[in-house]
């Protein structure tokens, strides 16, 4: 099956700093999403981005499908950005495979 690796596994930032999270996947996919899991466990949809670039406020994402990776950029980080960031990929059906996650802590 498809393997999905995320890096770094853990990240600690000062408020206001920028960061880049990476998601590598081992085979071609036609669905890719980024999620933020807040400290209460809720999964929040950030981007649906099987290819190309999207931006939403301080967040942006880029997927290079031919090279099998996706990047999530967080600019001017805030304490509310803390939590775990997951990428999830899928092929054909909705059977998403979740990555290993990046645990982010933003310090005030």
């Amino acid at each position, binding site marked *: 099956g498809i393997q999905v690796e995320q890096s770094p596994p853990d990240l600690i930032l000062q408020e206001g700093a920028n960061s880049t999270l990476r998601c590598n996947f081992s085979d071609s996919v036609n669905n890719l*999403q980024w999620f933020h899991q807040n400290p209460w*466990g*809720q999964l929040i*949809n950030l981007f*649906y981005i099987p290819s190309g670039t999207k931006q939403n406020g301080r967040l942006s994402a880029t997927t290079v499908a031919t090279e099998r990776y996706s990047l999530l950029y967080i600019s001017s980080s805030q304490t509310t950005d803390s939590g775990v960031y*997951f990428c999830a990929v899928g092929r054909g059906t*909705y*059977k*998403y495979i979740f990555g290993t996650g990046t645990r982010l802590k933003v310090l005030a």
Partner: protein
Amino acid sequence: SAVISQKPSRDICQRGTSLTIQCQVDSQVTMMFWYRQQPGQSLTLIATANQGSEATYESGFVIDKFPISRPNLTFSTLTVSNMSPEDSSIYLCSVGTTAPSDEQYFGPGTRLTVT
């Protein structure tokens, strides 16, 4: 996007008992799924809940342990049977959309602790 609710939000159960988790969606959806997230881990798909037929289970998950019902296009239940402490996890239901994109949306999850 669909609004998804789950009940209960959390529970503490004795080993050997069973718990049924409900998932309600505010609109009709074709695709519904159940995931498990063990402490500190990523999410793993348990099964696809099929309306009007038996659920489709992923490798490592069996119907006797995780029976699933899907009586209509807005509702599903997952039962965790004969629980052990290893079943302590967050259980999440999700739905798949088709327009404008093939996205999944997740419910708030059920945090289960088995003692």
